[in-house]
């Protein structure tokens, strides 16, 4: 089973400390191409979460049966099979979105995040921990891509959650800026994604630096106030 401590470490690593997009900077190809709006980013991340959770679980369960010498072909085989299943499911149930995400669902196979987590975590840890690692790495990707997609969309089109009708036919995009907003094409093009991603990485580093500074300054305080609680 999984302890509370382990769970917290795995979640913290996935969501913030080793965030795939703004700390490990992996999987930039889908990140740039897909995040022209928040919905696309969220849906691709959900597909990636499913693949990562399943592949981490499968590989952690089978890790003692996989000879070390041929682990990479076996990992790729398992990941590719799971991606194909997810691809078929998207095609069957979310056809319009499937057309938008296009090649990026099959490309999850070659997304370095998936193989990196399989090799670095699932091959060495029990199934439950590995599944959570897959999920939280995916959640980390989800919020980053959603935020990046949302910002690009808002700057580029003045809307939020455009294309939501492809997932829920009854919902519509939110127009946050007036109809007359001229649009800002740069935000929707790949360079805009690079610029915004750069800003997000800077923001993360700034937050980390601030937290580290606080942690350095703090030690005397807890000692002094410890008795008050």
């Amino acid at each position, binding site marked *: 089973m999984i302890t509370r401590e382990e769970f917290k470490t795995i979640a913290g690593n996935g969501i913030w400390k080793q965030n795939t997009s703004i700390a490990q900077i992996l999987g930039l190809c889908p990140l740039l191409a897909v995040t022209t709006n928040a919905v696309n980013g969220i849906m691709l991340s959900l597909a990636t979460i499913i693949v990562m959770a399943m592949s981490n679980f499968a590989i952690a369960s089978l890790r003692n049966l996989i000879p070390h010498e041929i682990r990479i072909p076996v990992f790729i085989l398992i990941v590719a099979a799971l991606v194909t299943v997810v691809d078929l499911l998207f*095609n*069957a149930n979310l056809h319009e979105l499937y057309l938008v995400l296009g090649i990026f669902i099959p490309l999850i196979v070659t997304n370095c995040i998936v193989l990196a987590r399989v090799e670095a975590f699932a091959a060495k840890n029990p199934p439950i921990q590995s599944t959570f690692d897959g999920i939280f790495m995916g959640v980390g990707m989800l919020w980053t891509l959603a935020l990046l997609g949302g910002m690009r969309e808002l700057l580029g089109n003045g809307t939020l959650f455009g294309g939501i009708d492809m997932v829920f036919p009854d919902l519509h995009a939110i127009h946050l800026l007036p109809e007359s907003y001229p649009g800002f094409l740069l935000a929707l093009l790949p360079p805009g994604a690079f610029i915004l991603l750069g800003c997000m990485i800077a923001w993360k580093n700034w937050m980390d630096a601030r937290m580290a500074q606080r942690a350095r300054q703090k030690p005397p305080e807890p000692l002094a106030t410890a008795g008050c609680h």
Partner: protein
Amino acid sequence: MSEEKSFSAQGMAVRTATILFIFVIIFTASLSAAYLWTKPAIEASAAQEKMKLVDEVLSRSEYDNALLDDTLTLPATTALGLDEPSTLYRARRAGQPFAIIFEAVAPDGYSGKVRLLIALRTDGSIAGIRVTQHKETPGLGDYIEPKKDKNKKTPWISQFQNLSYASIADKEWKVKKDGGHFEYYAGATVSPRAVVKAIHKAVRWANEQGDALYAPTGAAK
């Protein structure tokens, strides 16, 4: 992991190959299962996708057959700008020919080809036209696609509605700037010019083909 280092090279190879083979079998089987399970839904959504496009050019109330199953394969036709075979759909009402829906390509758009879907009734009138694929300049020439057209009530492409090959003289099949009949928006004439030309050629072609396009089987000339 393999702790039995005493294996001979051959034994190792056979053992590794067997394990890899077993994995391949298991995951291929699960892939086949997923494929068979999702196949009906995928086919249904592909048909739905096609029908959505068809619905834009021809209203469903006008015909009563299963139009996606009543098709004719057109060979590569220069009059339609097609350089590969394409499918023509035939709408019928009470068994009688009513309209054809086919693809045409304008090869001379501002940046590349403009693909069109044309619905033409038996009386020669155009039921509807949609641009299905183009790379025209965003904000300039892309108004040929009604979604991008600022005039939402009567988009540019709707002016072709109910016209027919016979109702406009050959030399009038041009944009107004070139002395023809058709509207265009100032600033972008190349895209509408290409579209008008392609539609003209397409309706003339359909007019020449006549009833052959409704023949039960066999390809048109």
